């Protein structure tokens, strides 16, 4: 059977999580690879969470917040927006492929967009293959 990636999604409560719920109430089907974790605002998403997810075996991490300007906390999503490029830089230096971590804006009304997003990301990561991070962290005597 083909490789089924594990994707962890960090969604803000007001826009993206509600958007994901809307996808549900509208019965919009998408791939079951994503596991959603709700936070109040995308500004709460600490880069450490992303690393933690990757280390614990996630093949991809999706971060979603309100569209710029629509944040329920007026400017939280900008904080996420600022962290993202720096985080990507860091992850790249650690040898983590670009597609594995992604930041997208999903509003409460964009159920379809969320579903498309998940499908797209799942496909990309399936093509990319499993994340190697976990493996490289095992101390293996003869590997030294």
């Amino acid at each position: 059977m083909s490789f089924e990636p594990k994707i962890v999604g960090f969604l803000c409560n007001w826009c993206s999580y509600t958007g994901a719920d809307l996808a549900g109430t509208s019965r919009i089907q998408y791939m079951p690879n994503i596991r959603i974790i709700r936070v109040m605002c995308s500004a709460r998403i600490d880069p450490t969470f992303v690393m933690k997810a990757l280390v614990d075996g996630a093949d991809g991490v999706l971060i979603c917040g309100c569209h710029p300007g629509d944040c329920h906390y007026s400017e939280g999503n900008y904080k996420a927006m600022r962290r993202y490029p720096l985080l990507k830089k860091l992850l790249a230096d650690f040898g983590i492929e670009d597609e594995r971590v992604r930041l997208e804006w999903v509003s409460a009304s964009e159920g379809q967009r969320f579903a498309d997003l998940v499908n797209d990301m799942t496909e990309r990561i399936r093509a990319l293959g499993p994340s190697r991070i976990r493996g490289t962290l095992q101390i293996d005597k003869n590997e030294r």
Partner: protein
Amino acid sequence: MADRKLQIALYWAAACGGCDVAVLDTDEFILEVAKLADIRLWPIAVDGKYKDVENMADGELDLTLFNGAIRNSENEHLAKLLRRKSKALVAFGSCAHMGGIPGLANLTNKEEILTRAYLNNPSIESGSQKIPQPETLVETGKLNLPQFYKRVYKLSDIVDVDYFVPGCPPAPHQVKAVLLAYVKGELPEKGSVVGASQLTVCDDCKRTKTEKKVKKFYRPYQIIQDPGKCLLEQGILCLGPATRSGCGVRCPDTGLGCRGCYGPAPNVIDQGSKFLSALAAIIDSKNPDEIEKIIADIPDFISIAYRFGVPASLLQRSMHK
């Protein structure tokens, strides 16, 4: 314990020797040490052979200050040996604590390192380029060299560590404090960081801090500093907010941003990402392109965020299986 002198050892693995110097930097206190303890092994200062250590009974040593990271088979062998012989093993200094400067090697790989060091190194006479091998046969017999590992490990990846004394190097007054505390038997629970505060460098930093917003980052030489003002607010990268205090604010006081050698604050599991999180949040822009431009001024961010802790980072921290 006055009847019996403390049996101690100091060892350096992959390290620069600065930690040993830091011990000597305790000045006359070193004589106190000599009074209190028998120094059974200290390659930099005292003559002693590995044989002697091997001949010791397990747990014969009371305390071992182990500095340096684990880079090769010799480092590992000694780490395990000393662990066995010591009642208390202390990861002494940033390298043993978090992998330290040698740990930066984990951002590349063994092959590249050896090629750079022994083949493409301008200081090598042409014709004599060869990579040293663990075993070399000469007419007198077989010569052995320690095996060079693929990765650098922090001490706790290899053996079970009792205490961590951070710092590159640990501040002498901290070294003194730790030793005295040990003698008095006043050390905290096993596994904890000693010789450092549980607050961050900012707590001790005298510079005035206000609300932070950064529009552009500078290297220290690029601007005329305001000596009284928080370096970050002036756009100079300073890990102070994300680094345990204890060093005595050595770098910021000289106008350099904190390097983070004392490692993350107690509640933080990854120093670099936490620093990133804080730093990015205060960038003063809402425009993705502008943000890209601003962070483009930060050279080699990973070596800034993890200068002393690549092997201790969440993404490279080894997991025992």
